[in-house]
C-alpha cells in the first residue's frame, strides 16, 4: 500500500514537474520567436504604415524600397537609430516596452511615423 502511494505521489510529482517544464519551454519559445514580425515599407519618402500598432515583444523590420537612402531614428535620437539604408537595405528593432514611439528619417526629417506598442 505504502509503495503504491509512494508511486502515485512520485508519478504526480513527475507529472507536475513535467507540466512545469513544458510551461517553461513554451515561455522560452515565446521569448526567442515573437509571435508575429511586423514590417514597415519605406518608399516615396513615406513610412508605410505610418501608424503601426504591435504587441510588446514584437520585432519590427523596416525595408527601404525607395531609390534614395533613408534612416529610421526615434525622435529622441537614442532609443533606436539605424545606419543609412540604401535601396533594399533593412533595419530591425524589437519593442519590449509598451508606449508610443515616434520616429523620423534623419536625412529627410519631414518623413515621420510612429509605432504604438501595446
Amino acid at each position: 500500500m505504502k509503495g503504491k502511494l509512494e508511486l502515485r505521489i512520485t508519478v504526480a510529482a513527475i507529472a507536475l514537474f513535467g507540466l512545469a517544464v513544458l510551461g517553461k519551454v513554451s515561455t522560452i519559445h515565446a521569448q526567442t520567436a515573437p509571435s508575429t514580425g511586423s514590417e514597415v515599407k519605406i518608399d516615396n519618402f513615406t513610412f508605410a504604415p505610418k501608424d503601426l500598432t504591435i504587441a510588446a515583444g514584437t520585432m519590427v523590420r523596416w525595408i527601404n524600397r525607395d531609390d534614395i537612402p533613408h534612416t529610421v531614428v526615434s525622435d529622441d535620437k537614442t532609443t533606436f537609430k539605424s545606419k543609412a539604408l540604401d535601396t533594399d537595405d533593412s533595419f530591425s528593432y524589437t519593442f519590449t516596452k509598451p508606449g508610443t514611439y515616434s520616429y523620423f528619417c534623419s536625412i529627410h526629417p519631414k518623413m515621420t511615423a510612429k509605432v504604438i506598442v501595446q
Partner: protein
Amino acid sequence: MKPKDNDLLLHDHNQDGVDRRGFLKCMAWAGTGALCVLSGGVLKSYSLSRLSDLPAGHAKSDFSFVQISDSHMGFNKAANPDVVGTLNTAVQKINALPVAPQFLLHTGDVSHLSKPEEFDAVDQILKSCVAKDVHYVPGEHDFIGDDGKQFLDRYGKNAKGSGWYSFDQKGVHFVGLVNVMNLKAGGLGSLGNEQLEWLEADVKHLSKSTPIVVFAHIPLWSVYPQWGWGTDDGAQALSYMKKFGSVTVLNGHIHQTMQKVEGNITFHTAASTAFPQPHPGQADSPGPMKVPAEQLRSILGITDVNFIRGKHALGIVDSNLV
C-alpha cells in the same frame, strides 16, 4: 517702371535702369542655353552656341565664380547611373567658360552616402577644373552616420561649429552656412542659435555697400515646406542682412534652378550635376526624377556668377550640361 504684384518682379532697387522683368525672363532662357550678361546696367543675351559672337571683354566683370551642387557621388539608380560622367561634363563646361572662374562654390550633397570613396572621387574629378579653389558647405547626404566628421576633416579646416565660415574676395563678403545639422523630426533645415549669433556678429560691422553672398545647402527661403524645402530659422539669418544693398543667397538641395527676388535679396538655387527632382507638388515625393536619357544633361547644370564692381546685382547665369 511700375512694380507689379508678383514676387518675381521688383522695383528697380539698383536705380540702374535694368528692367528686372527682362532680366528674369532671360534667366528662364538660360535653361535652354542662353547667356545673359549684365554689363554697365544693360542686359544682353547671347546663345551659348554662339559665344564667339560676344564682343571681347563683354563680361567686364571684376571676377566670377561658379556654383555647382548636389553631385551625389555614389548615386547609381535609374535617374542617372553615371554621376561621375555628368560631374565630368560639368567640369568641362566650367573649363569652357569665356572667363575662367576664380573659384567654385559647392553647395552640398557632395557625396550620396558620406562614404570616403565618394568624397575622394569628387576631389579627383575637380582636380581637372580650371578653378583650383573650391569652397564647400555640406548637404544632409554629407552628414550621414558621423555628424559630418569626415566632411569637416576634408573641407572644414577653417570653419566653426558644424562648418560655417566667411571669407572676402575683391570686396565681396562670402558666408557659408550649415543648415543640415541636428535636424528635428518633422522639421526643415536648421541653422541653430550658435550659428545665428556668429552670423550676426560676422556681418555687423561691414559697410552697407559691401556685396554679400550667402551660400547654404537647403534653401534659406520657403520654397516648398511639405517637401522639406526651407529653413526653420532662415528668416532670422536674413534679418541680419537688411542694411546691405546687395545680398545674393545661393542654395542647392532641390535639384532645379529657381530664382526669387525680395527687396535687396536675390535668391537662387542651382541644378544638380547628378539628377533632377520634380517641381514643387508635381509628384508624390521629391525623389530623383527619371527622364529619357537623351534629356538628362539638359536639366543638370552649373551656375556662373559675375560680379561687376559698382553694380549691386550679381549676374547669375545657369547653363545646362548639353
